């Protein structure tokens, strides 16, 4: 299971080993394949080609040897001296018999010339036979003198057959290759007719030198340690080895191949006249490369072959070398890839562990990999980052504490403001009531000056009340949560305009249309009411104009309340949004300087922004944005 997981999601080490093995082994394997298979193929082809050349050369050597012999023999029978010798021998043998002194003297006269000729030509023997088949001269086989090829014990011999053929076909003929009667070596004969004035007057016959024939076939030069030549001749239904082989000097006329049982054997094919080449198992049971041919003169099949073990030994050595290189390379590759992958994956693991430790809060942990490569750089950068993170986290915590404290004190302050303003209101109401009562009940007792002072007192008290209400309102903005809903601001603003009941010289209107926006209804109401009533308040023109409009931005609405009233000096742009700041010197008790501060607070708490653009005497434009 784990092997499977390893395979499907391999670790670096596995991947690396795999790739390295692939990269190194594929070319190597290809080289081994090429060297082995293709090389073997190539070598086989080359050796076969070489064997073909050698086989053809051997066949040609044998053929040429026989042709040469044939030509020499044909020359011999055409020589007048040879013809004369034949006639003398034939005549004396016929008239006086082979044992007569006449024949002996004639033979003694003729022998030196023929012997010389035999010596020059290298024939093993040379016989002269009369047309009737009597052997009337022989250089080496005197015992056969007088024997007859047409009758008697020799009539079935190869020599008798070739005598008959040459004599009747009137051509030079070569006998079959066979043992005859106690001969310890197989014999091949060649016979050619003597012709005189177109008449056949006798036959010359030579025995071919079988050793020379073997020598021609058995030249092992270029055949290495195991190459040899096998020669077979068809005798009955057997192909008999007619020559000793290199590996079995006693093979000749002992070993044979049965034609009917082994029709596909190369030696059988060869004596059937077929030629070929290829790989086969030879008579020793060894695998060989061989080429076979037919030798027409002797009816032989010849095989020239060499053991594949020898042919392919360089390839085998090469393959062994390559295989050991392959194994060593494999080992090295695995070892190296483990080393490399360790050098990569160890620091990575260390880094991973470090990360885990640090994530648990141990800011002091250092990965500290001592390496100059990219992983070392990474670990140093990691340590630096940890240090940096530690600092940032510390200051963030401090900030959080401060913020909490601030929140708390803010809340306390708000509570305090609420409580204070609420509690202050009661005595203030008392002061207002008492001053009213004083004015009413003691109207006669106060002079004008006293009444005026009482009015001032009452005014101040009312103003105080308004201020306290403002503070209360202001402090509530932050402390009271109001649910937001989709509000049609057209309805909202129209309602405000209606409630404000503006004087007839002031016209208030929505320009275009306002959106349906998500907002807390009461707070939005406060915002618009304050801005519009402010504009009304500072309307000093004969015809006042107040316009409300909205513009959609990327993520917010941008609202604008514009008037053509008194305008604001730019130095006061900041001041007007501050609590209790008014510009008209408290001429009216209800001008507490809370309204715009309240607007600013509502908008900014919601993430918006408020500002003013204005020109003194021309009018003002109050802008605010409301995130959608």
């Amino acid at each position, binding site marked *: 299971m784990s092997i499977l997981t390893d395979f499907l999601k391999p670790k670096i080490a596995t991947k690396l080993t795999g790739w390295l093995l*692939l990269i190194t082994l*594929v*070319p190597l394997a*290809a080289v081994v*394949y*090429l060297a082995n298979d*293709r090389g073997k193929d190539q070598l086989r082809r080359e050796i076969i080609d070489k064997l073909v050349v050698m086989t*053809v050369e051997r*066949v*040609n050597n044998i*053929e040429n040897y026989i*042709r040469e012999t044939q030509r020499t023999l*044909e020359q011999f029978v055409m020589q007048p001296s040879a013809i004369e010798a034949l006639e003398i021998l034939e005549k004396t043998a016929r008239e006086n018999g082979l044992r007569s002194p006449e024949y002996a003297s004639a033979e003694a006269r003729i022998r030196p010339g023929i012997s010389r000729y035999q010596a020059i030509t290298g024939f093993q023997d040379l016989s002269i036979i009369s047309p009737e088949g009597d052997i009337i001269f022989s250089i080496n086989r005197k015992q056969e003198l007088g024997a007859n090829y047409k009758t008697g014990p020799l009539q079935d011999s190869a020599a008798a*057959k070739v005598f008959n053929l040459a*004599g*009747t*076909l*009137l*051509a*030079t003929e070569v006998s*079959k290759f066979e043992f005859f009667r106690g001969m310890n070596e197989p014999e091949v004969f060649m016979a*050619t*007719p003597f*012709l005189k004035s*177109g*008449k*056949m007057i006798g036959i010359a016959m030579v025995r071919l030198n079988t050793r020379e024939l073997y020598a021609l076939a058995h030249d092992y030069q270029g055949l290495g340690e195991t190459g040899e030549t096998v020669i077979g001749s068809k005798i009955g239904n057997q192909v008999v080895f007619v020559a000793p082989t290199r590996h079995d000097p006693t093979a000749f006329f002992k070993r044979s191949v049965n034609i009917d049982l082994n029709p596909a054997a190369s030696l059988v*094919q060869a004596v*059937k*006249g*077929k*030629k070929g080449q290829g790989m086969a198992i030879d008579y020793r049971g060894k695998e060989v490369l061989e080429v076979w*041919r*037919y030798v*027409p*003169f002797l*009816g032989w099949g010849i095989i020239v072959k060499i053991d594949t073990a020898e042919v392919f030994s360089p390839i085998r050595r090469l393959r062994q070398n390559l295989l050991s290189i392959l194994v060593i390379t494999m080992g090295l590759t695995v070892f190296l890839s483990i080393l490399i992958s360790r050098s990569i994956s160890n620091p990575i693991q260390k880094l991973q562990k470090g990360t885990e430790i640090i994530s648990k809060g141990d800011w002091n942990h250092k990965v500290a990999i001592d390496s100059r490569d990219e992983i070392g750089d990474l670990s140093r950068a990691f340590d630096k980052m940890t240090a940096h993170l530690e600092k940032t986290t510390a200051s963030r915590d401090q900030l959080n504490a401060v913020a909490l404290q601030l929140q708390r004190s803010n809340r306390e302050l708000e509570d305090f403001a609420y409580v204070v303003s609420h509690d202050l209101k009661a005595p203030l109401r008392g002061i207002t009531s008492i001053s009213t009562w004083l004015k009413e009940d003691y109207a006669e007792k106060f002079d004008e000056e006293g009444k005026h002072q009482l009015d001032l007192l009452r005014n101040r008290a009312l103003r105080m009340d308004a201020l306290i209400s403002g503070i209360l309102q202001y402090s509530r903005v932050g402390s009271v949560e109001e649910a937001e809903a989709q509000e049609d601001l057209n309805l909202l603003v129209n309602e405000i305009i209606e409630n404000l009941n503006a004087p007839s010289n002031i016209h208030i209107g929505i320009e275009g249309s306002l959106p349906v926006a998500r907002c807390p209804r009461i707070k939005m109401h406060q915002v618009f009411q304050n801005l519009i009533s402010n504009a009304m308040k500072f309307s000093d023109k004969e015809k006042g104009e107040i316009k409300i409009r909205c513009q959609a931005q990327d993520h917010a609405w941008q609202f604008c309340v514009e008037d053509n009233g008194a305008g604001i000096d730019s130095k006061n742009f900041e001041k007007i949004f501050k609590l209790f700041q008014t510009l008209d010197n408290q001429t009216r008790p209800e001008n507490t300087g809370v309204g715009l501060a309240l607007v600013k607070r509502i908008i900014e708490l919601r993430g918006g922004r408020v500002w003013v653009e204005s020109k003194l005497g021309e009018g003002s434009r109050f802008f605010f944005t409301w995130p959608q």
Partner: protein
Amino acid sequence: MIHNKRGQAELKNHSACPLYAWIAGLGRERSEVGMHSRVLAAIIVIFLANAGCERVVIGEPIKVGVLFSLSGVMAAREASVKDATLLAIEEINARGGLLGRKIEPVLADGKSDWATFISEAKRLITQEKVKVVFGGWTSESRKALKPLFEKYNHLLIYPVHYEGLEQSPNIVYTGAVPNQQIIPAVKWCLDRGWKRFFLVGEDCLFSRAAHEIVRAQAHALGGQIAGEHYLMPGAREAKNVAQNILSLGPDVILNTLSGNASINFFVELRRAGVTPEKIPVFSFNLDEQALTGMDPKIAAGNYGAQNYFQSIVSAENTAFVNAFRRKYGESRVIDDPAEAGYFGVSLWAQAVEDARTDEVDAVRKALQGQSLSAPEGIVYVDPETQHTWKIVRIGVVREDGQFLIIWTSEKPVRPAPYPLIKMKPEWEKLVEDLYQGRAPEGNSWE
């Protein structure tokens, strides 16, 4: 065009190579292995493309000329050799051709006329650019073709037994020369004690030269020529000849007649009461094909010397006869030249494979020393004479038009185009005289 064909052939071969296909498939199918593997696979493919796949280029077919008389008086006689030649070509093509190429036979009609043989041969060589010509029948046609093939240094493979006394580096002779048919036949007669020969032939090169050889052999071996007659073409002298033979009473009649002349001769002999028991006829042109032109019973019991008889019992011959009959019909018969034409194609094909080219010069050289196991037995192209070693057979005509084989040479007989009986210059002079003395006068070979 050639380029395209080769290109396609190579592509096909690549896709046929399983290793290539497997690696190519690896890159395609397992796409999840990613780019790296595909690149790697491609590298492996390039690395192994040359190594793993043998390049077999299917080239243009090898053109060979097949030149026989398809019309005229000789057409019927030459039909079986033409068909056997085409059969051999077809069989080689069925085995995959030569050097990866098909053999394309270009059939040409000699129209039984030597001048047409020359012009057609010239067309085959110079226009069709054939690499070899299989063909020729009569000696006159071969004599006419010889200088042409020597001039163009080309290659003719001639399948008919003939009078010999000729040799050309540009001709390979797959038919017999006299020492492979006539001389053994005469020897066979002499062995039986038949010493008085009557020679009957027609006034053509083959008959005249063959008779000369028989005369020389008989003379050398103490035989006699009791009489000799040359029948004129179409003439009705057969009757007289039969009477003449009866009066002379030879031991055996040697017959080198061919075609209708031979048929008439046998009819007249039989009519004159000459039976094989009385005076046997030894024929050299009477083969299975010729016997289809007559009632075989008329000739039954007489002898023929050939290298091939359709009745030979061997695996090679059975296969050949069956293939021939399958292709051309059960009623068709095969004669000696047909068989020679058949294995001639195989010898040439072997030479092309050995030479690894179809170039005429190289193939001609490679043909020397080629051997194979033909329907008739072992055949071997003698490197010295470019004639073929052949087994000699003597058969008796059966009543069904086939031959009963009664004698076979032990082993293939080496061709001796110039029999030893005379010296080569003597033979050459003889042939020259015979050939020149019979200057061609139209289509009168029969």
